[in-house]
């Protein structure tokens, strides 16, 4: 294959990575932006989404589409329930204190990993793609499901933006992000907003897990890479900046796709890490973050 088609293939692969990463990182960024806590267990919500998708596929037997649709409903609900329980039982008790929540979510990360290892096992398990079709380019055929993943991710990103920008709930979230005490003084139940945001961030990660599992397989350690990449994206984009998160996800995802294709995935990770270091030195608040 000549360079042009090769590049097109790399860009398509990069777009899939970027879109799923944007959805995952958006959840992390939303939680940090509004609640000012770093959720180290965010990758485990992604992993749980994938594992729930595998269970749903097992339940529905032969119908891959049925299992996928069931997973799209069940995974976010199950993970949101877990996030709400975490918020009530852990985060509220430490009063959302930044350092304490980091330690608490590290604990949650290991708890979830070990629970899934015990109940689901150590094996990576495939989930069938819900639909099969190939898009025929003149040089190669490409998985239609991956294009569906891109489309679904873009819709999720737009939906999240619409909620934040156009609804009363979004206004309350933004008010809480900018000044929680003043939000309280204007009738916003800030603790309820925190619970909702933590659940919403977890749901975004879970949906990303459901979308990716037909491409990657479900495994109890699969949350670590997305967590690392989400942190990279959130740091480059600017902590708490949703626009920055999406832009950085596309920069990281696309460069990951292209560099992995032409050189090696390891080099892509090295360059992403170097980019984080560069951003931290030159612009510590990130590309779109507020300057201190």
């Amino acid at each position, binding site marked *: 294959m000549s360079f042009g088609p090769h590049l097109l293939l790399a860009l398509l692969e990069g777009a899939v990575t970027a879109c799923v990463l944007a959805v995952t990182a958006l959840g992390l960024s939303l939680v940090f932006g509004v609640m000012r806590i770093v959720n180290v267990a965010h990758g485990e919500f992604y992993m749980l989404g994938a594992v729930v998708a595998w269970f749903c596929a097992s339940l529905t037997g032969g119908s891959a589409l049925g299992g996928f649709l069931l997973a799209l409903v069940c995974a976010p609900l199950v993970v949101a329930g877990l996030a709400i329980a975490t918020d009530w039982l852990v985060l509220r008790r430490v009063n959302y204190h930044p350092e304490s929540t980091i330690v608490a979510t590290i604990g949650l990360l290991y708890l979830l990993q070990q629970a899934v290892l015990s109940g689901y096992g150590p094996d990576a398990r495939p989930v069938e793609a819900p639909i099969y079709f190939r898009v025929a380019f003149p040089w190669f055929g490409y998985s239609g499901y991956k294009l569906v993943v891109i489309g679904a991710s873009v819709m999720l990103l737009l939906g999240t933006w619409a909620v934040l920008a156009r609804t009363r709930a979004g*206004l309350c979230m933004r008010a809480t992000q*900018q000044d929680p005490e003043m*939000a*309280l*003084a204007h009738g916003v*139940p*800030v603790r309820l907003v925190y619970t909702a945001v933590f659940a919403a961030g977890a749901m975004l990660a879970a949906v990303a897990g459901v979308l990716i599992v037909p491409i990657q397989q479900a495994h109890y350690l699969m949350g670590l890479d997305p967590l690392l990449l989400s942190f990279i994206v959130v740091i480059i984009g600017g902590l708490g900046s949703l626009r920055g998160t999406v832009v950085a996800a596309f920069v990281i995802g696309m460069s990951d796709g292209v560099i992995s294709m032409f050189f090696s995935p390891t080099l892509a990770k090295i360059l992403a890490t170097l980019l984080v270091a560069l951003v931290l030195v030159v612009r510590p608040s990130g590309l779109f973050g507020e300057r201190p």
Partner: protein
Amino acid sequence: MRLEISELRAGYGRIEVLRGIDLRVASGSVLGLLGRNGAGKTTLLRAIMGLTGTASGSVRCGDREIIGLAPHRVPACGIAYVPQGRRLFPEMSVEENLRMGLFAGGEGDPASRRAFALDRFPALAARLRTPAGRLSGGQQQMVAMARALATGARVLLLDEPSEGLQPSLVDRILETIGQLRADGVTMLLVEQKVEAALRVADRIAFIEQGRIREHLTPERLARDPSPLERYVGVRRA
């Protein structure tokens, strides 16, 4: 709507700042609260809104008891807070800041509350889409007050509304406070600028070490300004 505060005690953690405050603000009047830094002026306003931790005693807004309510339920009782330094939502537009006031859910329908707020600050009508953080200090103060009025509040807690403003804007803010009083809005006004408080207040209360020490009318203070020196450190001829 009157505001009645009885035996209010509040502070931060184990530190008690308010040590039994008793105050009455008659319906449609302005009570100026003066005192030195650290006397408890801002803490009093925050305690009324439920924003400081430990509060006991009684705060009645009209017939409703506020102490013990969740802080986010306080604005629905018809009371709003204009904090020191304005504390707008800076990345939101002026319109969105007003919407935050409308959501707070006081009396009256949202459209008329919004109209009332903009009517008091007509200069804001041309700035509705501007992010609040990009406005001048005077405009930000107008937004802060309009946001509070948009809640439909009949009681306003104003914490140093003239802070950092040039004299012409201070005059504008004081004029609006006078208009609001004529509209029947009850106001508790904390001020560092003694002259500003004396211009608009019906009564002046002095706070020292978390207690109200004296209540006076501005006329009486004009005759005997010694409390100003005693409680605020301001000497007048």
